[in-house]
């Protein structure tokens, strides 16, 4: 059983590594990059929204700040790859700036404040035209060998995804993570047991902002064009919440699963055109409806997402097997 699992894992790994070699510049490579990117976002959001229980609707600011930091520095002659860690650091520092006041709020009050932070930042990016190019956005130089370039970013995104997963796994098993879980479940009780709740929430936000900032940086370099409407758009914040919720909020693998499914929904199902009873319409026109319905169903029936569902099915099966074994020995 364990050997089989490792084999499957290695198989998937080899497949992922081979995609750009076999089909350089294909659609699958592009989809792979997007999936890795979304996994980083989802895992990053989960550190604050899942582990620490502070549901942020403004995480897009980290993405946008990361993207703009890279674009602005690159256009001013800083080596391209050096801008990636800088983007993460600037995003994290921005998190410190707004987290300091906002994390004193609790529950829904914090969430509402983050919406304000997101919108304020978008407007700031829109109006600081000298720096950001305003609504027109920033266009980055096209590299000479675009196929080679994009394949490189595929691998880079893959590595950063693995890195963010390792960070998430480490947090989960550390004293830091235990403190965050305690804060999520009861902040006052956690403080009574010696947890410095505010510091822990800030640290989680910094780490989360760093990861999402890295993802924003990769996005800018991959797409080579950014504008405030996209990289600071509210819908990106909503995406970052949806993915962990679909997969299983506060778990290690849930956000990964959610991101994969989300990317597939986004890219495959949403582009379908349906022809029903003579009416032809595109599903993309209904994407908010689909996500809304999905959210309602998950929260109603399995708040722990697909990971929770899988655990439930697993329990059912093992109980059924146990019952079978008892019946057989009795008979």
């Amino acid at each position: 059983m364990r050997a089989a699992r490792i084999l499957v894992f290695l198989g998937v790994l080899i497949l992922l590594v081979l995609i750009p070699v076999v089909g350089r510049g294909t659609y699958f490579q592009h989809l792979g990059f997007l999936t890795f990117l979304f996994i980083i976002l989802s895992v990053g959001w989960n550190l604050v929204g899942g582990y620490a229980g502070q549901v942020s609707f403004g995480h897009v600011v980290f993405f946008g700040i990361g993207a703009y930091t890279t674009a602005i520095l690159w256009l001013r002659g800083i080596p391209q790859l050096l801008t990636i860690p800088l983007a993460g650091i600037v995003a994290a520092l921005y998190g410190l700036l707004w987290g300091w006041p906002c994390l004193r709020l609790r529950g829904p009050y914090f969430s509402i404040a983050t919406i304000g932070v997101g919108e304020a930042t978008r407007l700031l990016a829109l109006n600081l035209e000298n720096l950001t190019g305003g609504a027109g956005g920033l266009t980055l130089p096209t590299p000479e060998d675009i196929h080679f370039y994009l394949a490189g970013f595929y691998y880079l995104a893959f590595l950063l995804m693995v890195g963010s997963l390792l960070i998430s796994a480490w947090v989960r098993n550390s004293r830091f993570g235990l403190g965050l879980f305690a804060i999520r479940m009861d902040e006052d009780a956690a403080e009574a047991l010696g947890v410095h709740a505010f510091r822990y929430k800030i640290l989680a936000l910094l780490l989360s902002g760093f990861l999402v900032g890295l993802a924003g940086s990769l996005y800018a370099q991959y797409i080579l064009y950014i504008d405030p409407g996209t990289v600071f758009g509210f819908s990106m914040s909503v995406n970052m919440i949806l993915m962990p919720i679909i997969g299983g909020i506060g778990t290690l693998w849930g956000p990964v699963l959610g991101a994969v499914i989300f990317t597939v929904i986004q890219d495959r199902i949403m582009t379908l055109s349906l022809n029903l009873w003579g009416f032809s319409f595109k599903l993309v026109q209904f994407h908010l409806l689909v996500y809304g319905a999905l959210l309602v169903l998950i929260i109603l029936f399995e708040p722990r997402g697909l990971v929770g569902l899988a655990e439930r099915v697993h329990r059912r099966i093992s109980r059924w097997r146990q019952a079978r074994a008892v019946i057989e020995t009795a008979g």
Partner: protein
Amino acid sequence: MGVILEGKGVTKYFGGLAAVHNVDFQVQEGEIFGLIGPNGAGKTTLFRTIAGIYAPTSGRIFFRGQDITGLKPYVICRLGITTTHQVVRPFLEMSVLENVMVGASFGREWVTGETRDVRKEAMRVLEFTGLASKADVLARNLTLPDRKRLEIARALATRPTVLLLDEVVAGLNPTETLQTMQLIREIRDQGITIVMVEHVMQAVMGISDRIMVLNYGEKIAEGSPQEVATNPQVISAYLGTSHAL
């Protein structure tokens, strides 16, 4: 044995209402100090003021001579004063062991020479409090008596020197009450000073070395259980003036 916890003129107003008014108290190291009074007397408010949840309107609180007035709850806890909550608040989605591990991971600094193994320390506390067999149970699935016990275990895991227990036997049946009283004695025998708020008179009278009585936020009596029980002011506070001798 000296004074470990001291309050001088502790006062806490909520708006115009004095929940605690000008209360002086001294808790001796190693004793069980009972805090009683009719409903609304200000017992829990006094507790929360000591624990740092409320800052007192005026007055000071000292721990081993050090002024701790107005410090944040996590600082108070790390100094060695841990409070349990009247309404138990376990971390519901954690196992019993993990709940206690939170206390063991944070809480007071480890004394040098101790092995800093959080899991082992948490298991030790669970065995001491009689919860070891339920270590892997989710806190959400515990019964009320077990939740109360977990509340004590979790606080104990922070390695406090003073433990503030807020109504830990309320809602328990007589057998469970006796068991909890025994547990509290054992905790004291480990050298931990205990301050307890309690409504169950039998419990608090039987176990306390000294008792302080609050009424309408003011201290009306202090002394041994016998002294307090025969104090006319206390009797009138509880039973009305017509019963006073």
